[in-house]
């Protein structure tokens, strides 16, 4: 069951690297987070008790609230596509593929338990791909998607390395992401108001 989920997650992230449309990207992100919530649920079912709370939280925050907020924001924007990207989409997919290999090489080097090998490799893949998405995309929304992808990867890693974090830590992590996204949404709408675009390259103007 876990293996299938991991395969779908990898596919979702690879898909994420292909998408240039803002809305679709957010949908894809919600799908990815949903898969993560499923993984959480499975771990929670195994351990039982309070471990179900994180799954619910993931569902609520990462699948419903964050994509909802971003979608609302997109509704206000005028340009919905990452039209001009100086880096070809193919490169980000290629990088993602490379990171998948890196993940497996690393995990073999470290020598993890065979049971969690795929999960850890996938989470490293997600973290690095999320970062590369942030680097390679210009639009603020796409960068936010990259951030959440990375965040999902870290969460997945934490979930399997520690087999369920303490509840208080989980809550802290979620609050963190929530606030980050709220701030980012506010800033992005400000940016769109001031610069008429959400292209972060205009921020270079701010350098003294």
């Amino acid at each position, binding site marked *: 069951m876990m293996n299938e989920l991991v395969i779908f997650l990898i596919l979702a992230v690879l898909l994420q690297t292909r998408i240039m449309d803002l809305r679709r990207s957010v949908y894809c992100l919600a799908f990815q987070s949903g898969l993560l919530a499923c993984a959480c649920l499975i771990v929670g079912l195994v351990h039982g008790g309070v471990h179900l709370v994180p799954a619910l939280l993931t569902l609520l925050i990462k699948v419903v609230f964050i994509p909802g907020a971003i979608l609302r924001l997109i509704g206000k924007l005028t340009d919905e596509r990452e039209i001009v990207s100086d880096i070809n989409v193919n490169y980000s997919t290629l990088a993602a593929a490379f990171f998948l290999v890196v993940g497996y090489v690393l995990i073999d080097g470290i020598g993890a338990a065979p049971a969690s090998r795929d999960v850890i490799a996938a989470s490293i893949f997600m973290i690095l791909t999320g970062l590369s998405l942030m*680097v390679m995309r*210009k639009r603020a929304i796409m960068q936010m998607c990259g951030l959440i992808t990375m965040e999902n990867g870290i969460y997945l890693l934490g979930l399997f390395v520690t087999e369920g974090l303490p509840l208080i830590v989980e809550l802290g992590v979620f609050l963190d992401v929530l606030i980050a996204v709220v701030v980012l949404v506010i800033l992005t709408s400000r940016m769109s108001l001031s610069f008429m675009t959400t292209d972060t390259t205009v921020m270079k103007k701010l350098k003294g």
Partner: protein
Amino acid sequence: MELIFIALGLYALGTCSLLLPARGELLAHRAGTFLAAGASFLVFLAAVDYLLGWGRFSLPQAGLIPFASLGQFSLAADLWSGFFLALTGLSGTAVSIYALGYAAHYQGQRLSLLTGLWNLFILSMVLVLIAGDGFTFLVAWEVMALASFMLVYHENEKKATVQAAYQYMVMTHLGTAAIMASFYLLGSASESLVFADLAKNGLTENLRHVAFAFAFIGFALKSGLMPLHVWLPNAHPAAPSHVSALMSGVMLKVAVYGFGRFVFQFLGAEVFAYGLVVMLVGLVSAFLGVLYATMEKDIKRILAYSSVENMGIIFTAFGAGMLLFSLGQTMLSLVAFGAVLVHSFSHSIMKSLMFMSAGAVMHATGTKNIEQLGALLKKMPWTGAFTLVGCMALSSLPFTSGILGEWLTLQSLMSLADSAGTQGLRLLVLVGFILMGLTGALALGCFVRYFGVAFLGRRRSGAVLNAHEATCSMKIGMGLEAAFIVFLGLFPGELVSAAMHALGTDFGSLRGSVWGVFWLRSMTDVAVYSPALLLVLAVVLLAVLALPLMGSKVFAQRDITWNCGTLPTRRQQYTATGLSKPLRRAFTSILRPRRERIFLTKEHAYFGRRLEYRLSLPEHFERLLYQPAEHLLVRLADGLRVVQQGSVRLYIGYTMLAMVLVLIWGWAK
């Protein structure tokens, strides 16, 4: 109850005066300075008692005082710190009494802040001296640096003050960084930062050299040795005079204390090169310091450069002592270290006195340009008399305390030449001897010029017309220091005994008694400096010379000769610039003065011409050392700007790169 803790409490109470509202600032000032003077007197009393072994009071012994939130502090005093506590206490008392009257004219200009910081400044210096571990030392050192920065910054309406204060701040923090690095090196090789543990450090030979280099740079910077002195001639004129008095008189000695602690307790003086470096730097500072002092026109800059000179002499003696120690001449090295202490003490009192008198002059005339003074002795007889004592001491004339330290320094240079193993060292010591002699002569010239131009002759500008004598408390403050200078000049025995006691030897080759200072090189070879005998000799000689004149009548008729038919005017007397002209000529290759002569009108080659003459001494150290360093720093920063492109994606890219590197590193392990 230990006396020194009461003193610390009084200082803390005095510091509170900065919290008082502006309305009662004169009251706060009086209370604050009284507290500072009283506390300093207690410090002096406790330290003298400890040094002379009366045993009535005690200084804090090693022991940790835990402060739950701030970590652990410890206070400990030994004989070495006791000596410096004594000089801090003495100058602290005298200058605080002086400040009572002097600083009152800052009323309306944050006076209570000045007084509060004044207390904090003395408190921090006492704390540095009784710190028992590296952490306490550094904290107190930093408080001292910041308090003195705030004091220098006090007259911040002036642009020059702000610049000087910030320059001082940057320089002093460089020094603190160096000292901190040295402490870290020592601490990493010891059990803890407590001084007793640091003494048992297990540093390897190479790291010890590095630690020594850092310590020397840090303390040399604070004591204003060349080429790290640049802050000193700028900070002193900018600061209020009583602050410069204490900064020059005491703070520079605190640096000597710190250096001594590092050398004696932590690093050892066995390495030959250490002493060599210290002595060379000291010699260069002494000579160049006094040379620049002779060129200056600002009275406080003269005094500041003279501080550079005297710190140079102190470090020359220190270096000579270290060299003697490394050559195995322990007894002889004690003479040199004794010279360090004696000269530290006497320089502390004489430089405090001189800065106080400079403050009185500035207060009375409103200028610190020596070219605008003159004939002040008539208007300010007391200040003039005290200044004369200070000038005599700084030129190391007999019957003042100034000669003692220099005499001992020269003696130890001589014994170093005697016991030098190699020809090279002997030659070097010879050069050092010449430089020291030159320094002494130049210092004499410098202070003859200082006193002559400022206090004698006829007035050089209208600023002198309204000059008035200093107030009573200022006179008491100056008089106290002057009395000490003369007393120690006549009876140097106790000071030398105290210095030898502070070095931990009571037998020593150096001895003091009522008759003077004795120094035994071997059982048969004795050198004596006895001011009492000299005084008797001088009186007898004067009497013999005066006797023939007594009975006979001397006729003197005064007339003006060779004055080309005009009466000599005020403008024909020597100016300070003119007086130092021969030296500027002689040392042109070092000073490289820039002269500019512009003819405003020139009707004829010899008359009917008006000209403007400008003379400036370029700052060679800034040009050759500091500006290149600054350029390098700016260039490096420009290079780093490439990294800083303002692109969000690039910054995330850096994060990513770092993460990949960490992953690879983890994997490779």
